[in-house]
């Protein structure tokens, strides 16, 4: 049984309809067994999403990581079109729904948060009141800007696939987080500093790239 054939019967597989041929393929193909694990993780996360009106940032992050692991939110040109996406993953229709839910919750949290004075705004009212281009991610953003939990999850994911490059990713994460901290400090000390704001975007670009590469299924 080939990977393409296996992926065509994924829905039945996930519902427990598994025969010896499926089991044999799963045992011999790490890519497909990883795919099954990822789908189960996403399914579990979706159940949690339904059960709660306001998911925590942690859940948002775990969903994001799960989607990245699945390769569903990486850049489209990276997706090899060897077989049609429907054939490769017949549950593709769920992705926009989950993404819309995530965006909706993000906006809700952002709006709610932005109505309340943040710690930074309370402490630095004159600076916060100054007119500025809102490029700097607000401190009330739903997801934490530098989350050690996120990083640990990422390193754990990398470590399970390739322990030898875990240290390298850890060093890169330190570089990127240090860049974010510097850019944030600079942008907060002078909200009109366009260089600092651009640097903050650059630093976040690097972080996004690092996460994308670390969790790309096609890479070890």
């Amino acid at each position, binding site marked *: 049984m080939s*990977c393409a054939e296996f992926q065509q019967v994924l829905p039945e597989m996930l519902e427990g309809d598994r025969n010896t041929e499926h089991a044999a393929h799963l045992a*011999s*193909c*790490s*890519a497909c067994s990883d795919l099954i694990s990822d789908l189960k993780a996403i399914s579990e996360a979706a159940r949690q999403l339904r059960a709660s009106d306001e998911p925590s940032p942690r859940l948002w992050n775990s969903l994001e990581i799960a989607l990245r692991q699945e390769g569903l939110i990486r850049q489209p*040109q*990276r997706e*090899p*079109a*060897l*077989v049609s996406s429907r054939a490769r993953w017949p549950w593709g229709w769920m992705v926009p729904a989950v993404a819309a839910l995530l965006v909706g919750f993000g906006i809700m949290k952002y709006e709610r948060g932005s109505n309340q004075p943040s710690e930074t705004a309370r402490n630095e009212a004159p600076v916060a009141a100054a007119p500025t281009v809102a490029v700097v991610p607000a401190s009330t953003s739903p997801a934490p800007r530098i989350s050690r939990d996120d990083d640990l999850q990422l390193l754990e994911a990398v470590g399970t696939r390739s322990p030898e*490059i875990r240290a*390298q*990713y850890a*060093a*890169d994460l330190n*570089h*990127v987080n*240090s*860049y974010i901290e*510097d*850019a944030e400090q*600079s942008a907060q000390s002078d909200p*009109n*500093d*366009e*260089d600092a704001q*651009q*640097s903050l975007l*650059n*630093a976040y*670009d*690097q972080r996004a*790239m*690092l996460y994308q*590469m670390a969790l790309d299924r*096609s*890479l*070890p």
Partner: protein
Amino acid sequence: MQRVNRGAKLVSAVVLSGAVLLAAETRKEFHFTVGARPTVSVTNQYGSVSVKPSAANLVSVTAILRSDKVEIDKGQSGNRIDVLSHLLDGANAENGRVDYELVVPGDASVILTSTSGPLRAEGLHGDVTLEGANSNVDVREIKDAHVHVKTLNGPITLTNIHDGHVEITSVSGNVTLVSVSGPHVQVNSNSGWIHYDGDFGYGGEYYLSSHTGDIDATAPQDASFDVTARSVRGKVENDFPLQPKHTPFVVKAGSAFAGTMNRAASSVKLFSFSGKIHLKKR
């Protein structure tokens, strides 16, 4: 006599293991007929990918597989070719290695992805997107195209890129740009240094930034640009006799400078947090 025997055994063992390795290697070739401006994508975990141009409407892929622990998935969907190294159980960086050489139409857009193998593209006038964690990236002789490169640690070299829309992001890879010009040239580095050696073209925007990496930019005396350079905690140096200009920030001697050179045709911005910035005259 005993030493001679031991030497002979050693040589035999080396020859034998080499022969076994060679025997395990497989060479495969694939050919795809394509139309104008095809898209060619190669995803390879271990091993090199090299792309060269040809005049024919043909994509030729030559792959050297190091062992049977890796196989190649390939496909054509209209004008799009996808090639993917598919690692099997037990594959590692050595036996999962595949080295690719591609010949593609000059107007092809190529997307190359690797973890550690070198990536090279040359002589194209279609868009080039290269991504690799530790890959050594070499792009040259590209004209009138987008060139997008991302690495975590791999060094990046771009040579003779003209009329390009260039975007480079690297965490700790060093970036070297030689004769690179275009309407948009942007480098976003963290700890890797950035070397630019060119003339800043005519009418383009150049933005080179780093966190801790040094930035060197070298241009000829007759280059025409408007420059702002600033390092928050590092030092800046300038060899050009710039005409003063207004800046949105306070110019502190030694940590920032700004000015215009000749007719200020291009805009150049150099920014670092703690890297040293040097604008050099060739």
